[in-house]
């Protein structure tokens, strides 16, 4: 059996003395798209940040394609193991789009051919970015900025893709475009963990769903198995 793309076992993580996550078990199989839902403050962002190594206090197992990263410094995890579209995108708004993308491929900088190949694949996924590639990222619309953030994540050619509420604050059309892009990545066989507050979107984009509440996994289920009843169930957790 091949290793999971992402495997969390007994993960505890938090800030200072206080654990936000308590004994979280969560897996993303290779090629699987997993949705992470839960009310505000449940610890979803903390979970993604813990995988990236951005949360200092973390214990348990965090394994990416069989590599234990729980003690690995963040900048090493970022070199092809995991990549993140963070809450609020956090683009380098003063710098051109293309520089934002190239900064995603820092660890591949010596392999120029690979970098231009990845850049081409990002422009193939989001053709509109090619035309504006020399504009400062801050000059784009929210939807296009989210495309840049997703593109920057893809530029590091990571084993597991992490997205924190990619639809948040976007206009309906932009949400559709982002969801479509994620479905494309899923079809390409990427391993994805996406935090998504909108249940309908999560069920559409994902193979499997986890609901996180109070720092613990409250529900784990195949998206397919969750019909209208499941939605009601999830809604109950989301409060």
């Amino acid at each position: 059996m091949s290793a999971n793309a992402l495997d969390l076992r007994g993960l505890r993580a938090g800030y200072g003395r206080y654990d936000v996550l308590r004994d979280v078990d969560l897996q993303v199989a290779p090629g699987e798209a997993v949705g992470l839902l839960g009310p505000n403050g449940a610890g979803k962002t903390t979970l993604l940040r813990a995988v990236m190594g951005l949360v200092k206090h973390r214990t348990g197992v965090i394994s990416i394609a069989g590599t234990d990263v729980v003690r690995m410094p963040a900048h090493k995890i970022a070199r092809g193991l995991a990549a993140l579209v963070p809450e609020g995108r956090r683009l380098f708004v003063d710098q051109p789009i293309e520089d934002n993308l190239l900064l995603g491929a820092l660890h591949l900088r010596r392999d120029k051919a690979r970098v231009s190949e990845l850049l081409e694949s990002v422009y193939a996924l989001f053709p509109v970015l090619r035309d504006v590639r020399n504009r400062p990222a801050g000059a784009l619309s929210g939807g296009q900025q989210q495309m840049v953030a997703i593109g920057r994540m893809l530029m590091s050619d990571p084993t597991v893709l992490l997205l924190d509420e990619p639809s948040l604050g976007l206009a309906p059309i932009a949400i559709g475009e982002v969801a479509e892009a994620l479905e494309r990545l899923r079809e390409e066989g990427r391993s994805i963990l996406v935090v998504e507050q909108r249940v309908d979107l999560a069920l559409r984009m994902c193979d499997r769903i986890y609901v996180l509440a109070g720092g613990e996994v409250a529900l784990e289920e195949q998206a397919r198995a969750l019909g209208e009843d499941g939605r009601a169930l999830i809604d109950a957790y989301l409060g």
Partner: protein
Amino acid sequence: MQVLLSGLAIGAIYGLVAMGFAIAFYVTRVINFAEGQLLMVGVMVAAWFARTGLDPWIAIVLGILAAAAVGAVTYLVAVRPVLAFDRFSFAWLVSTLGVALILENGAALVWGPTSRSFPALLTGTSVHVGSATLTLQEVVTIGVAIAAAIGFELYRRRTLFGKLGMAIAHDPEMATALGANTVLVATAAFALAGAFAGLAGVLIGPITYSNPYLGDTYGIAGFVALMIGGTSRPAAAMAGGLLLGILGEAANKLIDTQASDWFPFVVVVVMLLVLPEGLLSLAAPFRRAVRRARAPAGATG
């Protein structure tokens, strides 16, 4: 004309030190209060090697390298530990001042507290520009400083490492999440900042001679130049330095021959009252307008 050119020559020195402050601050948000002492390290080490009979040009290069090395060590010893303990700590204020004191007193201990010679390579030749006369040293100083400012700016915008520096300046945690080793980049920034100060040192050395207390004067002038230029981009600090140099020379001429000793303080007070974000803040409204004009219609949602 003489005031203008002499002002540019001394202002170029202030500008290099100011850029040193700015480069380190740009990447780390830390003011290295030992920046002036790095100029002194450049002067002292170059003078010392020159006294041993080494070729003066090689001594000068070694002086610059020594300043860069001490800059890097300053980050690793005095800045990184306090920031690792608490990212928002202001303890670097004290720790870099501590480094300044150690360097100054250490240099006085090793090389003695009095001024000693510095290799004069270009001071003997005069260059006439219109009615004004400069030494070749001053002409080279102006040229080197402007080339350093332009070179840095090109490097910052055109190379991946420069772009990474900008990214770290903007959002260090996000840069880390993209694989940046922020400690390495910050150390490099402090080293480059040291090299700028060292460069300033070997350029002014033939005029000031080597003296362990040089760091005070030039550190303060460089800091004032940084205030004038603002911290939004390091090259602006060079503009601040050149302006301060010209103002100081004018004050010497018009007010009192020693006026440039206290004049920087007057300038900085006025600056902070009138333009707290530095000279470049004058241009900000224009830049915002340009950005708005370039943004696509309906740039929301």
